[in-house]
């Protein structure tokens, strides 16, 4: 990608509930910002539980320069299961100039919500949809399950191996994840975009995973989020 193309990045992160979509999306947005791209827009597209994911981090991320499109409590009526409105500004997010990173929350219904967004004209459409996979989640626990899961999503552009056991992570699960996701990607004819890894494993894992996919290191923000 040329620098100009990166500046117009449009990416959506989808995946199984609790697969790590928000963490990957936040880190990607911050990385784009650090490369000098302006503006970088992070979009919370969680219609089921829009108040508990990025919201608590909104101020912190905005203080660092990221534009965050997410509901604020004071602007809403009802919380939790009643708060299923698409924020009007989110509807037009893909038509904005700059880098747009969409966290497509709540994986069970997940990807269908992308249809609610206004898309740019066909020739300008550049949205890439990446599927975040943690093989420690039994729903995407082996090659067959990952393939079934990704096929059910429809057209996507790549897979991300985000396999971990939370605070109890060991390199073994990261390696196994790389192997499972790489095999599944081959069957699906998709690239593995990254293996994403908590930055505390930088030494052990290195720049490429056991299958040769690039590693993108994550700083953990989500432990401070609500759910």
């Amino acid at each position, binding site marked *: 990608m040329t620098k100009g193309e990166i500046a117009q990045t449009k990416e959506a992160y989808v995946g199984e509930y609790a697969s790590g979509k928000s963490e990957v999306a936040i880190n990607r947005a911050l990385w784009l910002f650090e490369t000098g791209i302006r503006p970088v827009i992070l979009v919370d597209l969680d219609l089921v*539980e829009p108040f508990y994911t990025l919201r608590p981090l909104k101020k912190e991320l905005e203080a660092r320069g990221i534009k965050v499109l997410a509901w604020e409590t004071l602007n809403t009526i009802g919380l939790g299961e009643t708060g299923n409105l698409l924020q009007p500004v989110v509807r037009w997010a893909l038509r904005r100039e700059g880098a747009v990173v969409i966290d497509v929350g709540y994986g069970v219904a997940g990807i269908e919500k992308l249809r609610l967004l206004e898309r740019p004209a066909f020739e300008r459409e550049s949205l890439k949809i990446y599927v975040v996979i943690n093989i420690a989640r039994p*729903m995407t626990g082996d090659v067959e399950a990952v393939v079934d899961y990704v096929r059910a999503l429809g057209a996507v552009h790549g897979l991300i191996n985000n396999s971990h056991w939370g605070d109890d992570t060991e390199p073994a699960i990261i390696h196994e994840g790389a192997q499972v996701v790489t095999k599944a990607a081959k069957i699906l004819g998709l690239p593995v975009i990254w293996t994403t890894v908590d930055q505390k494993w930088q030494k052990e894992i290195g720049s490429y995973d056991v299958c040769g996919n690039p590693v993108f290191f994550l700083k953990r923000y989500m432990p401070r989020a609500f759910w």
Partner: protein
Amino acid sequence: MSMPAVELEAKTQRKQAKPIEGVKKVFMTGNESVAWAALAAGAEIMYGYPITPQNEIMHYWTRLAPRYGKQFLQTEDEISAGFTTCGGVLAGKRAFTATAGPGNILMQESMSMAEMLRLPTVVIVQQRGGPSTATVIYSQQETTLTCFGGNGEGLRIVYSSSSHQDLFDYTIKAFNTAWKYRFPTFVLGDGYQAKMRESLHIYDPAAKGIKMEKTVPFVGQEGMPGVDRAPAHLRNTFNTEEELLEVITGYVAEYQKIAPEIIEYEVIETADAEIVLVAHGIVARAAWAAVRALRNKGVRAGFFRPITLRPFPAEQLRKAARTAKKLLVAESAQGQLLKLVQEALYGETVPIATYLMPGQGITAEELSDYVMELRSNKTNREGGSR
């Protein structure tokens, strides 16, 4: 479109396979952990009506159930979800439901019937804020409701979970306790545990030597009642006070007799403790972390966690309280665990300090700071309360 034979065979094989082979380390939410535990326990049907924060128990059950030939019925409300769970059990199915807050209130009528008919129903409760709709997030305000919510004597068994591993272990155990003793059994979690993500080991009960209790139909059994078998005479209504008294007295006696087999608790470092922190559920995790931090500072703190809230480990708590100079009861409610503690300790003289935060989470740091505050305030003879 017909399914190719090979694919059909693959699907059928998957349906017959065990949901979990052996033991597997996984990373998931508490709600998922419950759905997998119910599958592993051989639950055959879930009846349910959606309510936050338990929704993903249903979501995952409905995604998983068809793969393993299990069933799901979404009912029109929680009144129906409770009664259909009773119906499933009457038909001999290992049946369960899950709910929270206002839904838990609506299930009290059916669970009272389960007490009266001695039906081994299993209910998972992920507590949210109360009263009424309150918050969809978290509390420990359904302690009294879950233990004593019916119009009867609270003849139920209530396990309070502290972690995803607990949710998995005690959901499996709840089915066995219910079917062994025939009292309605509850697993009491909360919205934090429901949505939080952490690692745990999921397993096939057989891999851990756990044998699932056999299920039997309560109605429609083979043979002539009174000749080939005892009649299935299930009653939740009686003609006279004396008749009811006799039945309830029998149930209460049976409940008291089995209570020692069911009671579970955790007690750590209370022998030399100047203060014992008493907490259940997820707050017990904060309390335990506070005790470790206090011990590191040289404060002799101890820990008591009732795992069964009903029956309550009263004797065990009395024993721990007798050597302590003070108790500190911490909970995300305005004194619901406290009532159970006070009842258990009636007649004891140990002062009870409280840390009561209805509907709000409690951290280890808050508790250890509060203990330090209590220690410095020597004039506070009643024990202190917040």
